[in-house]
């Protein structure tokens, strides 16, 4: 084997190891998820006013967190790519975007499940939901752009730009929707859930946040490994 082929083989082995690491982390996360559900059902008090349906909050809120995490890391990885031009950063950014889309889908589907019994409507234009919805559109635009550009380095540069600008958009969306709702109070007021929760609920929430962070790490690591494998396969054809 030439030195060139040897280093390619090493890359593939490392990529496969990354995928394995990701899958193991995901498995741990899924166990944690099961534990969270148990925690929510058996060890967390039921909220007086909203009743049993409120419990989906412990699964719903962390998905928003994971979406934002995925989105932010995608933008940051893009920014780093523009600076360092390391193609692996682009693979990571792409992976984070895909994973983010998955979490966003989870968030937007659990939201209405919670919303209907508690708010009386399937949807509300509140900061978190609105932001996540816009993040979905940005992800879709990101993927559409990637699909439309053939040259890998051009694709990486352009996606990085969209990711970075998208990240900069986040605080403005949050602020605008917040200001909008302050001026136009909605009939059903959404309590800012974290600060005014009793300890048992906070504990469950934090645990769930940790679990969803682990799930994010697991998904993105596995996807990153797969992305590296795909990239090494395509450059292989060149030799």
């Amino acid at each position, binding site marked *: 084997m030439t030195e060139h082929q040897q280093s390619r083989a090493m890359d593939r082995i490392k990529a496969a190891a990354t995928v394995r690491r990701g899958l193991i982390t995901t498995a741990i996360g899924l166990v944690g998820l099961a534990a969270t559900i148990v925690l929510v059902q058996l060890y967390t008090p039921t909220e007086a006013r909203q009743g049993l349906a409120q419990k989906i909050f412990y699964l719903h809120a962390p998905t928003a967190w994971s979406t934002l995490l995925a989105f932010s890391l995608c933008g940051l990885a893009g920014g780093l790519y*523009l600076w360092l031009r390391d193609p692996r950063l682009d693979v990571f950014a792409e992976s984070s975007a895909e994973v983010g889309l998955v979490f966003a889908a989870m968030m937007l589907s659990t939201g209405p499940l919670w919303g209907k019994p508690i708010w009386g409507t399937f949807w509300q234009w509140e900061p978190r939901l609105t932001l996540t919805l*816009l993040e979905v*559109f*940005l992800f*879709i*635009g990101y993927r*559409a*752009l990637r699909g*439309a*550009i053939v040259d890998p*380095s*051009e694709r990486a*540069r*352009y996606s*990085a*730009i*969209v990711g*970075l*600008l*998208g990240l*900069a*958009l986040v605080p*403005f*969306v949050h*602020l*605008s*929707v917040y*200001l*909008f709702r302050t*001026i136009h109070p909605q009939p059903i007021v959404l309590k800012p859930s974290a600060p005014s929760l009793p300890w048992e609920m906070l504990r469950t929430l934090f645990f769930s946040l940790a679990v969803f962070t682990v799930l994010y790490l697991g998904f993105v690591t596995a996807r990153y490994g797969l992305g590296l494998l795909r990239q090494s396969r395509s450059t292989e054809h060149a030799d």
Partner: protein
Amino acid sequence: MIDLLRHGLAIAAKDLRVELRSRTALVTAIAFAALVLVIFNFARDPAGARTIDLAPSILWVTITFASMLTFNRAFALEKENAALDGILLSPMPRGALFLGKYLANLAFVATVTAITLPLFVLFFNVSLGGALPGLLAVAVLAIAGFVAVGTVFSAMAVRTRFAELMLPVLLLPFLVPPIMAAVQVTSRLLAGRPLLEQAAWLKILGVYDVVFLTLSAMIFPALVDE
């Protein structure tokens, strides 16, 4: 700094000259704006919600969508005969290219706004009162930021096969904060409230403009240089 401005103006002047010769983008955008206003008029139920409640939204959606039609022009014209290469070959700083395209786009959007606003007042029987200066101020603040992002995205979109579709898909999420702010301020102004009362929204617009203009200008060289 002066150099940058000089170069930027040279590019903007060239763009405006080309547009004056071919007159495609601007005329299309203005016709679009006028048609949209007409359609909105027929799309409302006279017995339903009061027009004045919806009017600011109609105004701003029309202006921003018509403006988007003009953005692709900026880099589509450089694609013919690879003219962009001609600019990139020269020692001119890439920031000046961004500035030039941005200024040209601003000029087009300002023209679209200048024509849409009177049409809007006419078609929807809006009484401006003393709101005009405030409206103009909001207009300037609202378009400054999203034109910057539109300039960056149109440079990318023209390199894909579906530029007309790609640009709105990328750009529309970025319109949410400015449109929200513009509509809120406009509706207060039309109700006779003073401009400075809307300080919170104006601040959001101002910060949005500064952030996105700066980011777009900084990111642009990475876009055009391989």
